[in-house]
């Protein structure tokens, strides 16, 4: 299913944080692609600066950052709450 926010996020992650194959999609595992502590910290900062969303503590967990779609879900949840 298309998810524009997730696609947008993935583009930013690719540009700044993680190098992936062109076929890497919004449901592919970011940890398998190399996401680590430092990159997650930079990603949370990127979400604040570029997407105007500060994830609440309860969403700062490994599951949130597994795929671009899950990060997009967390962003929507944050904005809606």
């Amino acid at each position, binding site marked *: 299913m298309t998810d524009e926010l997730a696609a947008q996020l993935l583009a930013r992650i690719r540009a700044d944080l993680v*190098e992936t194959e062109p076929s890497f999609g919004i449901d592919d595992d970011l940890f398998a692609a190399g996401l680590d502590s430092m990159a997650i*910290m930079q990603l949370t*900062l990127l979400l604040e600066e570029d997407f105007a969303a500060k994830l609440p503590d309860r969403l700062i967990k490994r599951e949130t950052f597994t795929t671009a779609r899950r990060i997009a879900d967390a962003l929507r949840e944050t904005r809606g709450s």
Partner: protein
Amino acid sequence: MSALAPLTGADAFLLAMEHLMLRHGQGQHLGFTQVRLGPGFDLKRFREACARVASVSPLATARVEQPLFQIPRWRIGDETPSFPIQVHEPNTDPASLGEARLNTPTDRNLSFDVIPQPDGGTTLLVCWRHLVLDGKGIELLLAEIARLAADPAAEPRTQSWGVVGERSLPWREFLGEMERFKNRFYENAAYKIGALSGSEPKPGRALCEVVKFSAEETAQISALAAAVSRGVFQLAWFLAAVTRAHRAVFLHRGSEPESYQTGCPVQQRKRGTRHPIWQNQVSQLFFRLLPAEATDLAKAAEILQEQFATQTRERLDLAFSSMASILRRLPTPWYLRFLRSNSGGYITSFFYSHTGNFLPECDTLAGAPVLEGWHVPSISAPPGTGLFFSERSGALTATLSWREGVLTDEERALLWKSLREDLLGS
């Protein structure tokens, strides 16, 4: 044909550290990487792949030149590049050989030792000058050799030798970075630090010990780390445990420094990238724990986590990188004096890194499955000790590197005991 390339900021820092080591009878700043392979290693294919990488890379022939008050640079020699490969008897002990390599002067930037194992497997040792590349660089080099060994028709990558750390900033932004770095620097410098070697460099051999944790133990460690770090920020948790392990030795000696401080390397390469291989492509973040903050592991991890968040928000990794670029212009003895004079001579309390998954790019190398691997850098005294972690196939490896005379056997046992108890929660 000769060519020139500037040292990165991290290269120049390591040049200063090597200067200290050479001046005080501690040898070159070398490291080795040990890789245990299963059956099927094809030495001929491995040799050919190494020769192909060497032929297009500066790794084999690069030498440092340091014109006065200019950025030191690499001169890439025009001799025929090659990586020496020595094959040993099957009864050779890889750990002893690795330690011997750390203490043997060499004019080679990189060399390989191949040790056939009685079970049909092979142990590979890569000995490397830390000036030439970092631990991640070694893994990327092995991945490139593996790629070429798997496909003899493949072309070696020629674009893997650039620099990721060079940035061109407007003056205002640059000054802002310097200001942020300076603030952090002086905030830390307000606290005296200590290191187990004492502040004065002394001669001594590089020594090392590797401890492997089983998959079950590693799962237990990960679960404990996740409970504190929410499964995403394990850096702070491991660093807290390493600080406490050093603290255990200080307490045993009956004195404690005003603070424990260390730099933590931050990769400047994008995650998942296959290059650049050459040069040290890292910056640093700086952490500090006071003795009262280190009494409890969870509390210590939480404090370090806050420092991690603040420094990431302030992009202090980029700020340090900019500062390191400026410091490259200092003649190496002055650079070293700068490092030591602002830390009471200690430079840092200890060295630490967690390089994450070991060689995740490779399932096999020259026909043999990659079973496990780790890095062992030699370290200077001061600070005299370093603890380094990596993981392969869900099993954690910890490497203690120290300088002869810095730790007694009893203190080393104490350090490991504290680390194991913290990591395993026992």
